[in-house]
Every structure is written in C-alpha cells, then in structure tokens.
C-alpha cells in the first residue's frame, strides 16, 4: 500500500511538471506583454499551439536522417526525466535518490548534444550557426553548473537534491558562497533557456538567434515536442532555483495529503514569483552581442569557482 502511495506521489510530480510547463511559458509571455503595455495572448495559448502543431503534418527535408526524426523524442524524454527529478512540491519522493545534481546536468547535457547534432543534420547554414553557438555557450555553462553542484556538495555533503533542500531548510544560513552559487545559477539558467540577454525566445529568422536556429527545419509534431522540451527546461531551472534556495513549503518525506497540498501551493507561488522576476529582468535589459555571451557565462563559471574556493579556505563562508 505504501509503495502504491509513494509511486502515486512520484507520478503526480511527473504529471505536474508536464502540465505546468506550457502554463509557465504562457504566464511569462502574458506578464511580459502586460509590462510592455500590450494585451498579450491568453495564458493557455502554449497548449493550443502545441495541439495545433501536433495535428499538422510533418515536412521533412529530403536528406534528413533517422537521427533527425528520432531526436525530438530523445530530447523531450531526457528533459522530462530531468525536470521530474527536481523536487518540486515534496522532498523524499520514491525516486528522489536518483535526483542528483550531476545526473540532472548530464541529462540536460545529453539533450543538448542531440539538439546540436540535429541542427547540423539537414545541412542548412542556419542550423550550423545555431549548433556551433550552442556548443560555445555550453562549454562554459556546463562547467559553471558543475561548480555550483560542487559548492552545494561541499556545504550539504551530498549532490542529492532532496537532501540539499532538507539541509537548507534545517541549517541553512546566509552564506557568501551560497549567494555566489545563486548568482551563477541564475546566469546559467538564463543562458540555457535562451532568455533575453543571451538569446531572444520570441524571434525568428535573425542572425543572432541560437535555439530557434537549430530547430528551424522542424515542423509538425516534431516541433511540438521540441517546444514542449524547451518549456520543460525553463520549468526545470526555475524549480531547481526554488528547491535549492527557497526550500520553504517543501513537504518532507512521509508528509500526508495536507503536506503535499501545502507543497503544491507554495510551489505554484514560487513559480509565479520566479517567472515574474525573470520577465522583469528581460524587459529591463537589452540583448547582448553573441560574442559578449562567453564573457557573461564566464562570470557564472568564475562565481561558481569563487564560491568553491571560499568553501575550501574556510567552511564558515
């Protein structure tokens, strides 16, 4: 009986991230439009877009390989697993022992690898530019992510997310190294999700785009799945920041239904605030030149490194 309940809680989390990801995207678009004094599309528009794309027929390039057809599903499933591993409303779920920061980084990294491969598969110049830029950014963003994981691991003694969240809840205090890790994680999240200072998510056919350039050749259900994966990734990073740095409200292991309800409610609140802050940042700054992005990401890497260095010198940082 206990096993069934545990599995249900885990299933709830997997379903929750799947359900919320397009909503979060719609929410950020709506808030952004409102901040720019426009009406904006309705909150549920991303769901409608996905449904529409699902119904449309797939147009494939003549020289597209099997990789081109199978990669969207690989990318989607890797991102979904990673997003479902991050503790959203409760720690200590049935599969939480697999929720390891390094594993999540690796899952995201492998989905990025396939995305970069299919960007080059058809052989258009846009896809090639997108892939090469994505890899340029990834070569700095991934080490930064690993540095953040090390910083947290030095503090909490583990890379397992639910244990880290519990550690932050019980004996978290204001620490300089945590502030550095937070700043680094925010930079990495912005870069990984192709948000404004790095890439513009609302643009098509511009020489500066990165993410959109790689998926330019996709249509129909493949495009739907890829867009869904992008939405899931945004949700993943927001819940990662929420679970590590604002763990209040997370239901502990073995909490009853009320605990889970509080957890879900606080999670929704955190997502709303996080999305709003993201949009505030996006509307207040301009997109930077592509060749400035390595500098920007280099800062994340250095902040992570600095946080780890401080912890090595003295544990009280």
């Amino acid at each position: 009986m206990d096993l069934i309940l545990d599995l249900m809680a885990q299933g709830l989390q997997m379903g929750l991230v799947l359900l919320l990801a397009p909503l979060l995207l719609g929410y950020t678009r709506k808030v952004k439009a409102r901040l720019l004094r426009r009406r904006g599309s309705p909150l549920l528009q991303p769901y409608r877009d996905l449904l529409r794309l699902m119904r449309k027929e797939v147009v494939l390039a003549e020289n597209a390989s099997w990789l081109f057809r199978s990669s969207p599903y690989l990318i989607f499933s890797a991102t979904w697993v990673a997003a479902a591993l991050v503790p959203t409303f409760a720690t200590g779920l049935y599969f939480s022992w697999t929720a390891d920061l390094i594993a999540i980084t690796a899952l995201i990294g492998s989905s990025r690898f396939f995305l970069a491969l299919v960007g080059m598969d058809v052989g258009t110049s846009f896809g090639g530019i997108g892939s090469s830029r994505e890899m340029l950014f990834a070569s700095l963003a991934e080490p930064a992510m690993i540095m953040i994981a090390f910083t947290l691991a030095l503090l909490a003694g583990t890379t397992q997310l639910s244990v880290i969240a519990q550690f932050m809840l019980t004996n978290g205090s204001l620490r300089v190294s945590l502030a550095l890790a937070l700043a680094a994680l925010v930079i990495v999240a912005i870069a990984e999700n192709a948000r404004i200072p790095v890439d513009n998510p609302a643009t098509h056919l511009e020489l500066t785009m990165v993410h959109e350039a790689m998926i330019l050749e996709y249509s129909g259900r493949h495009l739907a799945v890829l867009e869904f994966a992008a939405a899931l990734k945004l949700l993943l990073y927001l819940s990662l920041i929420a679970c590590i740095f604002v763990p209040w409200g997370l239901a502990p292991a073995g909490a009853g239904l009320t605990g889970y309800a509080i957890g879900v409610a606080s999670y929704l609140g955190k997502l709303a605030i996080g999305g709003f802050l993201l949009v505030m940042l996006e509307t207040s700054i301009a997109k930077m030149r592509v060749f400035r992005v390595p500098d920007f990401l280099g800062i994340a890497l250095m902040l992570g490194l600095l946080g780890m260095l401080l912890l090595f010198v003295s544990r009280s940082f």
Partner: protein
Amino acid sequence: MNGQALDIAHLLAGSMVLVSFLLLYQDRMFGLLNVFALQAVILSASVAWQAYIQQAPHLYVPAAIALVLKGLIIPLALHRIVIRLGIHRTIETVVGIGPTMLFGMGLVALSMVVMLKAAAAADPLAREDLAFALSVVLLGLLMMVTRRNAVSQIVGFMSLENGLILAATGAKGMPLVVEISVAVSVLVAFIVIGVFLFRIRERFDSVDLQALDEFRGERR
C-alpha cells in the same frame, strides 16, 4: 541572534566583492557609474549594520557619508563629467575581460590566504571580513591598472577606498576621525582629479591615458 547578525555582516562584505567583480566586468561608462553607486549603497548598508551590531552609533556617520557622497554626489558628478567629455562609448581595456576576471579571482584567493595566515589569532568572522575588504582593495587596484580611460580609473580608485572603509569599520574601535579624514581626502582627490580630467582633455583632446605615454615618448 548573534550568529545571524554576523552572517548578515558577512554577506554584505561578500556582496561588496561581488560588486567589485561587476565593476571589472562593466565596460560601459554609465553602467560602470551605476554599479559604483550600487557598491557605495552596499558599503553604507554594511557600515550601518556594523554600527548596529557593535552598538557604536558614531559609525552611522561614515554610513551616511558613504550613502550621500559616494552613492549620490560622486556618481552624479561623474555622470555629468562623462556627458561633458562626450565619452559614452565603450571602455577599452588593456587586457580582455576574461583574463582580468581570472586575475581578480587570483587576487581574491591571495587576500584569503594572506589574511588567514596573518590574522590567525583573530575571530574567524572578523578575519574573513578583513579578507573581503582586502580583496575589494586589490580589485580596485586591478581596475586602475587594467583601464586606460581616466574616468574608469577614478572609479577604480573610489572602489579601492570603499574597501578601506569596509576594513576600518569591520575592526572594532577605529576612531571616527580616521574615517572622516579618509572620506574628506577622497572628496579632495575627486575634485583634483575632476579638474585634471579637463586639463588632460584640453591638452590631448582625449582622456585616454595612452596619450600621456605617447607624449612622454614611451610609445609601444
């Protein structure tokens, strides 16, 4: 309560270092001045917090000086100078941003090692605050070395002085006279440098200090 209070002091000192890195990263004039104002505001908060936890009301004076003088007056004045000099363009750095940041990291590591060795007997938190202050000073020096534009060198100098005040207030029992005299000397330096900027511009048609080197015949 006490642990929490020290944690906040620590965090404020740490954010000073973070803002120093932001200063190194900024390569636009107005962005640089805004970040400098932010650093002054954090410094003022940090000094006020020290005044609160050390129960030393005289420390509120340097906090107010930092807020008004360095958070408002100097950035606004520099803003006007930048507009009057017509240098809104990007700053040329001697070395790129990446190597500069790496060098800055090295300086932070150096100040940690030096402080932990030199002040081994002190209270660990005070020691680490001193280490942060020393890194702010060193990062300000680095900024003065890597920038060629006179205005950004001034900003580097001012941020160096922020580090000095941070160190002075972190240590208990620093007399008020010292802090006020430091603040006043910085104001004087600011005025003198401000006058010199226009003199330099008059003579060389530029505030790029490379021109001075070339004038002395040290052309590279």
